[in-house]
């Protein structure tokens, strides 16, 4: 097998039982696997390849094509900052800069305390509230650099309690 960290592959059993034999389900399986592991470890990808009869090359190809998939672990909270047109026009760049400075990370990175990962996305479809970000399942609109930093600090405070 591969030389990566060992994941608990039994967690995949249910997903594979449901989808492995359904044609064209590779993306669905990877989405569900990512829900389980938080990301897609290499050994999980190999297991999926084996169970679905795909070559590892194909599974890797799919896992690296779509931006939703992550091959490395992310922080506890995922910040998805919208960089859509409306958000761009209304100052998403300044918001991004403020978040990066606050967390001392760049797009795609995870803060040192492991609490936040930042990912810019094309459009969250909440253009009227632009600029917008989503932290986990929650959407925050009409951001300013100060407001965005405040939101992050609040989550941090809650985490510290």
């Amino acid at each position, binding site marked *: 097998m591969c030389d990566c960290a060992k994941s608990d592959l039994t967690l995949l059993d249910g997903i594979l039982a449901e989808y492995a034999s359904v044609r064209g389900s590779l993306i669905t399986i*990877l989405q569900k696997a990512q829900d389980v592991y938080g990301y897609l470890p290499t050994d999980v990808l190999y297991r999926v390849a084996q169970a679905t009869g795909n070559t590892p090359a194909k599974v890797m190809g799919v896992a690296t094509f779509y931006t939703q998939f992550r091959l490395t672990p992310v922080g506890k909270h995922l910040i998805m900052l919208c960089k859509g*047109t409306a958000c*761009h*026009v209304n100052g998403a760049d300044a918001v991004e800069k403020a978040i990066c400075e606050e967390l001392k990370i760049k797009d795609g990175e995870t803060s040192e305390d492991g609490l936040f990962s930042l990912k810019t996305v094309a459009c969250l479809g909440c253009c009227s509230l632009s600029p917008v970000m989503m932290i986990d399942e*929650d*959407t925050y609109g009409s951001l300013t650099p100060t407001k965005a930093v405040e939101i992050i600090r609040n989550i941090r405070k809650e985490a510290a309690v």
Partner: protein
Amino acid sequence: MRIVIGEGSCGIAAGAQKVYDALAPLLENTGARLGITGCIGMCFLEPIVDIYEKGLLLKRLVRVTPDDAAAIADAVKSDDLSPLDRLAITDEDKSFLDRQTRIALRHCGVIDPEDLNAYLDVDGYKALDKVLHTMSQDDVIAEIKTSGLAGRGGAGFPTWFKWNAAKNAAGDEKYLICNADEGDPGAFMDRAVIESDPHLLIEGMLIAAYAIGAKEAFVYVRAEYPLAIVRLQKAIADATAKGYLGDNILGTDFCCRLRIKAGAGAFVCGEETALIESLEGSRGMPRLKPPFPAEKGYENKPSNINNVETFANVSWIILNGGEAFAAMGTETSKGTKVFALTGKIKRGGLVEIPMGLTLRDVIFNIGGGIRENKRFKAVQLGGPSGGCIPEALLDTVIDYKALSATGAIMGSGGMVVMDETTCMVNMARFFLDFTTKESCGKCVHCRIGTKRMYEILTRITEGEGRPGDIELLEELCDAIRSGALCGLGQTAPNPVLTTIKYFRDEYEAHINEKRCPAGECAALRTYTINKDACRGCTLCAKKCPVGAITGAVKEPHAIDADKCIKCGQCKTVCRFGAVEVR
């Protein structure tokens, strides 16, 4: 009394769920029912609370906060809504909706999207019933042909033609696919339809499936739309349970299964052959056409793909007749079109209007013009495949042909308004950044060509533009247009071409004078302190990360232009507006 809260994604993001949670306990045992609806479309007023009595809208409350819950509950209990007038929508804002003609969005913000009965109450599934019991496949296609309905995803291809091709294609196994991979940044009408009226989509799809002879249908939804997926899942389950989906629909021989496939983040999957690749579980890389999907699509079987808004029009056409639909619009574009009006606009939201209105009608009449009384500069239509239209062309009518003539496209309906503070070169750069990130990487022109265009635009915005860069961009645009494999690549030059066409002077100012007329490009900005306005509070000097600001206490300060890194912090902290940017 029925209290309804608009809970589309935007509404929830604006705090609608918090308002709901605050209201729910207060309304217990009052006799008033609390419910939800989807997106009302007036995003600029969210959260919105509607109060109905016997189906009649008594009051529409806007920008409601959880703090207003008690007042609402009290008013409902006392049956006197007048204390809520301070929250009520103004007549001017009301005109935003009144000036629209809603077909695709006709139930949005009206019915509860999670309740099948609510859909049935507004004549839901009646069109399907009519089709299955009284119309042949060809009848349906003929009706759609009469309506003049064209693909609302962007290209505007006649819908009946695609259906007919799929129907006539050889083979028993055919597929119907709904493209809900709404990827254009700035467009969200498809999300709104699914979140607010999922059964309308299902019904439209079933009619199409019947027309082409498909027993299997998919909705390919962006993974970024979790709420849409949840509501659609529930709608599919409810419809299946009630016999509107599955085997022997409405007691006929017609059987159709509908499945949701969540996309995984790839704009290119909006291109139909890439979408098919993705549905099959592969990398979403476009295929060569021909063969077209109608011939060889999903699993190499005949397939038909339409987008959400297209399907959302179908049941109305069946119920009201194709001619009624065709009565709206222009010579070449029929019916209505939904736009997502955003950007520097006063009233942003979803706007559905008949084709043939002008851009000015939408932006100034419905949208109320530009925020903060700034000057209109351009409107971006069609996202990364579209273009920026200048003020001089605001009277262009909304029509596939007329919009294409400007260099932009109708697109899926994103309409992003920009004011004088938006740099058009940076705008082009923004779109090329998007395209390079979303290029699948298959063909040379798109993979490397858009990258090079992005690099050239970046250097122009950074003050490193060279004479000849505009011509080089034009040359690359031309080559990419004719050389790229799919629509994404072929249209990627549009934002660049239109900005060069209408705002060439801005490009020239960046390149020749190293100046950004909109003042947006940081590298070309200069910060100075207005000596008369400065009070010498020293705040800016303390905040400056590079020590570029000097001055004695209570004396005017000055910025050393050589040291300044143009971070803008001085301007942010200055309480006297003394920091000026040029």
